[in-house]
């Protein structure tokens, strides 16, 4: 089987031969393992090697892209010709094109994105992990009678990028994850919760016991939940759901959305938009981070970017194209044909989550939301939520079937407490934080 770099170079050469003026190709070969346990049984076992090639071609300033899993030479040639043909119907855009020059491909020394223990860990041990997660959540409390399954899995990937400017880069990356979704029986209701851990390798994963305990405690904790009253109050976002809020904020910092007028932060550069506790960082070189890589999807070296500094908006996050449109350099955030996070996070504070709760006289703690934002233009935020009512600095009772609503800009400005519990278990991660006031809609 050809090496990924060889396939990427072949695609670039074919694109130029078909009439492209510039071309770039990324080839990924990934070995994936996944298993699901239910009760005492492994119900699913998946193991595969997948290959994918993505190509961008430019005919002058006209861009077209290709994604294909047919990596035979004939198949690839036919697809590349088709995409170069399609590019001829695209309008000329003076900003479109590869980066200005080919950076030297950085060695990935010190990035720690390939963990040897992923390839070494025996399949039997991984299956045992899944079975342990199932056993442990059921052992936690008699009310846990079922589960939506324990999932374990890992990936070993080789990635290569070549472009017609002469850039050649390759690296290896690994990842592993484990999660479980226990269900507690609460009278006629079923209370489901989920919790998981993900990292570059097994050594950095939370133990199965710890994952199971957190998940089980959440499911049992929701027993007896009721609808809260409609009110304006402080809202504490526990770290998982805090990361979801950050991903909505990331959309507004995505330069493609800014350039399209599709961001509530579009005209706010240089302004103070957040509270002094709101420092947001995108770091593509964080050792061991799940969003860490030596270079981005365009071969631009990754870097650490302070996006929001103590509430002041310093920069958006750019790829080459949107950087040119808005007069800025790429921040190394090109990803999958658009702009994506590397390791995007809120700088942690020093309090614990318990201290945030203790400092809240009357409010809500959220650990789960459902729904998604559609109002990127205005920043309007509204989600279904579950969590706890807080009274006099304590978790008073579990609550569900309500929404929290506000505006992302007001939420950024309203962050008045930040915990220190940041864990980089995703490319967007956050410590728990509190927003001074939002609307809770219940009964």
């Amino acid at each position, binding site marked *: 089987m050809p090496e990924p770099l060889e396939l990427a170079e072949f695609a670039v050469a074919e694109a130029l031969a078909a009439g492209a003026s510039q071309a770039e190709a990324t080839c990924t070969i990934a070995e994936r393992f996944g298993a699901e346990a*239910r009760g005492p049984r*492994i*119900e*699913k*076992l*998946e*193991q*595969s*090697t*997948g*290959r994918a090639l993505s190509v961008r071609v430019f005919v002058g300033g006209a861009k*077209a*892209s*290709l*994604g294909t*899993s*047919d*990596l035979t030479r004939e198949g690839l040639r036919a*697809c590349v010709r*088709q*995409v170069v043909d*399609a*590019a*001829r*119907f*695209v*309008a000329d*855009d003076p900003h479109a094109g590869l980066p200005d020059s080919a950076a030297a491909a950085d060695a990935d020394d010190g990035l720690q994105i390939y963990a040897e223990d992923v390839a070494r860990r025996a399949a039997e041990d991984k299956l045992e992990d899944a079975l342990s997660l199932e056993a442990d959540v059921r052992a936690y409390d008699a009310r846990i009678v*079922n*589960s*939506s399954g324990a999932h374990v899995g890992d990936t070993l990937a080789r990635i290569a990028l070549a472009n017609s400017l002469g850039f050649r880069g390759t690296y290896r990356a690994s990842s592993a994850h484990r999660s479980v979704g226990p*269900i507690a029986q609460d009278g006629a209701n*079923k*209370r*489901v919760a989920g919790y998981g851990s993900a990292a570059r390798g097994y050594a950095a994963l939370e133990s199965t016991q710890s994952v199971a305990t957190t998940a089980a405690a959440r499911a049992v904790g929701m027993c007896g939940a009721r609808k809260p009253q*409609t*009110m*304006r109050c402080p809202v504490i976002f526990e770290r998982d759901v805090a990361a979801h809020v950050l991903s909505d904020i990331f959309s507004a910092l995505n330069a493609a959305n800014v350039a399209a007028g*599709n961001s509530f932060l579009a005209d706010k550069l240089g302004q103070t938009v957040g509270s002094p506790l709101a420092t947001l960082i995108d770091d593509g070189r964080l050792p061991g981070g799940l969003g860490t890589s030596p270079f981005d999807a365009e071969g631009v070296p990754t870097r650490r970017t302070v996006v929001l500094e103590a509430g002041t908006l310093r920069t958006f996050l750019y790829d080459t194209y949107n950087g040119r449109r808005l007069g800025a350099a790429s921040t190394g955030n090109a990803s999958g044909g658009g702009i994506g996070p590397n390791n995007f996070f809120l700088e942690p504070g020093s309090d614990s989550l318990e201290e945030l709760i203790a400092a809240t006289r009357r409010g809500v703690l959220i650990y789960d939301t*459902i*729904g*998604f*934002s*559609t*109002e990127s*233009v*205005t920043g309007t935020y*509204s*989600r*279904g939520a579950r969590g706890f009512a807080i009274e006099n600095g304590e978790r008073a009772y579990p609550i*569900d*079937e309500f*929404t*929290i*609503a506000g*505006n992302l800009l007001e939420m950024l400005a309203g962050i008045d407490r930040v915990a220190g519990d940041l864990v980089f278990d995703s490319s967007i991660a956050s410590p728990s934080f509190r927003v001074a006031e*939002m*609307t809770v*809609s219940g*009964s």
Partner: protein
Amino acid sequence: MHLDAAAFSQILNRALGAGEYADAFYERRLARTFRLQEGKIHEAGVSLVCGVGIRTISGERAGYAYTDDLSLETLLRTARVSALIARDGAARVDSVELLGEAAEAPPMYETGTQDAGAESATYVDLLARADVAARASDPRIRTVNAFVSDETQEVVIATSEGLFVRDRRPLVALGVQCVAQGSVRGNGFQGDGGRAGIDFFATRTPEEIAREAARIAGVNCEAREAPAGEFEVVVGAGSGGVLLHEAVGHGLEGDFNRHGTSLYSGRVGERVASELVSIYDDGNLPGERGSLAVDDEGTPGQHKVLVERGVLRGYMQDRLNAGLMGVTSTGSGRRQSFRVLPQPRMCNTYMPPGESTYDEIVGSVKKGIFAASFAGGQVEISKGDFVFMLAEGYLIEDGKLTTPIRGASLTGNGPEIMNRVTMVGNDARLAGRYYTCGKGGQYVPVGVGMPTVKLSRVTVGGSAVA
């Protein structure tokens, strides 16, 4: 496609191992997309997904492996990995022998036997027309983005039980997003399409779709913040079907019910909704986005009665879950691609018409919310809690639609809400065909539909507290 009956037979025999059932799913899906931004064609894309997924079932266990390398040697190696799940089982003596050509699935799609192969200029012209129409319909329109996509998915399904079938599925979509500037910036989206060729847009024109997107953006740019609290809610015909899809449909998928994790588990024959409520799921509506001549396990698409006058009648099943629950597949086994296992999924989910008129329903509400259309929704299966985001909504005051509202979501509990259906309109229709459903990380095209429906009480999650 060079994989013939003999090759599939070898693959299946290797995959079967000591298991009781094996299948192989070949897919070749070619899609072309064009995107328009700022009045110009901004980007073109070609996507080809091609490979084989191989599955082995042994009791409640499923082994799975896929490959995009279609050499027989790699396919047989992949089949052996799939069979690992069944290594404890008894060795089999009978073997699989498929003969002849794969059978063609029955016709189910409007047109579109072409291989996503219209001239590029055809797609470009559709987008340009949408752009012009959106801008011409409202001077407040500031931004128009539009896309058109055309795909053909060719599948061959072969099973150890001797099923050997092929299907060729077209799918087109055209969507327009507008931003209008009024007292606030307002978003509007509209899309349509279906299992048809690109000729679909000769009758359902890009101009119609674009004007509808512009109209919604125009409404939203003068919308006020939605109120918070509990209200009577009237859900508009068409995209209100998202409510059925989320609040009930997912809970009736066979996997959740086999595992007993759905709140509807073990409740067939019980009253689960107001007797005004019937819910069907249908894979056989010609040309609809969620229709399938055969599902991804080779079972023909079917019309399923899920709820009839409030009584739960049945679940949607794929092969694995049907077998373990002692029933037959309902043709609901779907998968995003050859890289993932099939799951029981919805096709086109809708509620048949009731007896009230739209005017009677809206006229009966003194103070409430009209949810004209939804941008999407999400449900938690075990307890049934859901949330829906409104794309277009209004206050109802004294039986009339008044102020447009923005930023609202509806939240509640599926079975509770279905018991609060107090009026059902005679205006049932399917929504614009652009919905995609996500489950376990797999996305598949679906259809939804509903008549105008009144709900006696729903929590509206706005930010304006009265």
